[in-house]
């Protein structure tokens, strides 16, 4: 394993606490955890792209960064309307 793959592994392990918060905490805390987890997932894709020397993976990271931002904003908007 090179340094990029090791860093990607650390980031992917760090996703587990975010998953725990999203499952066991309230909806508002889960939204914060999902926002952090999406940043971590984008970073892991960037690192895997560099580690495996596969250029298409970086496109996935760019698209995920855009979509996760829009998705989180949508969840925040919907949560405002939810009583």
């Amino acid at each position: 394993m090179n340094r990029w793959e090791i860093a990607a592994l650390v980031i992917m392990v760090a996703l587990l606490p975010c998953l725990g918060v999203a499952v066991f905490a309230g909806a508002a805390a889960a939204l914060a955890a999902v926002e952090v987890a999406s940043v971590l997932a984008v970073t892991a894709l960037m690192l895997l792209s560099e580690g495996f020397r596969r250029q298409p993976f970086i496109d996935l990271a760019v698209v995920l960064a855009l979509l996760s931002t829009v998705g989180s904003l949508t969840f925040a908007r919907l949560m405002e309307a939810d009583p």
Partner: protein
Amino acid sequence: MSGVRHAVPSVLLIAGVVLQVTAVIGVSVMRNVLDRLHYVSLAGFGALLVGISILCAESFSLIGDKALVTGALLVLAGPVLVHATARSLRARALGDWREGIEEHREEEG
């Protein structure tokens, strides 16, 4: 010189990963939702450091350019996300996010 070219990406990579792990610890440990939200932007800065690290290792290539753009996008989107989420949580709790804002406004003059 080769050692420096190898060391700079490693240092930036470690700093980025440490920032992101710190963000995860903060989101997991903090009790208040608004306290947890502070760590969303921190994770974005970690992604930017990782992107700069890849750029230093790759120079201006397809992967390096897109990694930098992705990191910059996450840094710019972080405060927007935090603001929108905090505002929606306030509106959810009080009915309107402007509710009670006059009580916190400092006296002018």
